[in-house]
């Protein structure tokens, strides 16, 4: 790869604005990088949609970001990371892709002394089972993930940020 490739932006994608917390951490950690962030605000929440639909939306978002010349893709959406990551990987022709579940699961395993880990996620994320698999891969024994789904953005109480478009 040439130096030209390295100067291209990193793409970041979420169903809404919650992924901006990931963008913020990326800017802090990698201040010299260019970033293009895409929030699919017209179609959020992803958390209540079927795995097939989330996979299709995720591929479309990845393809849109590729048009911006990205050199890597960060899937900053838990639901898309849970059920859309393999579909994205099959459509992006060698582009490095990073989701949020594997890093989150690894950090949780490293931080948990008792082996108990609570995961609060969208319905789609819990159903997709990616956290359960990632935790099992990282720390197969003595770890018991406790999964709980909460209403996703757009279907909850607006006073609790229910319609604010936070990460699905």
């Amino acid at each position, binding site marked *: *790869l040439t*130096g030209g*490739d*390295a*100067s291209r*932006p*990193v793409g970041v994608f979420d169903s809404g*604005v*919650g*992924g*901006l*917390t*990931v*963008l*913020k*951490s*990326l*800017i*802090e*950690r*990698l*201040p*010299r*990088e*260019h*970033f*293009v*962030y*895409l*929030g*699919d*605000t*017209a*179609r959020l929440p992803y958390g209540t949609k079927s795995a097939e639909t989330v996979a299709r*939306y995720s591929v*479309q*978002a990845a393809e*849109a970001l590729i048009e*911006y010349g990205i*050199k*890597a893709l*960060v899937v*900053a959406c838990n639901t898309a990371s849970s059920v859309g990551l393999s579909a994205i990987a099959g459509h992006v022709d060698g582009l*490095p892709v*990073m989701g*949020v579940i*594997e*890093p*989150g699961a*690894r*950090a*949780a395993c490293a*931080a948990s002394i008792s082996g108990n880990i609570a995961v609060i996620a969208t319905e789609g994320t819990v159903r997709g089972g990616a956290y359960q698999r990632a935790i099992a891969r990282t720390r197969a024994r003595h770890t018991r993930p406790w999964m709980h789904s909460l209403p996703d953005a757009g279907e909850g109480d607006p006073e609790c940020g229910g319609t*604010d*478009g*936070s990460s699905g």
Partner: protein
Amino acid sequence: VVDSARTTAACVEALLQNARLLRREAGKGTVRLLATDGSDRFARIGSRFLERAIAAEEVELIDL
């Protein structure tokens, strides 16, 4: 409570490093914000998550 944003950023750094894709030029990078609907709302709510002000004009609307 695990902050998956920070751990993800660390993993992205490692990913770019392994692929020899870390940007070498000096100077701060830029940020482009795209949304598929509601740039006003994106700017208003998003600024809380990004922890900086976002102007609605900064948010480009695209179709997927």
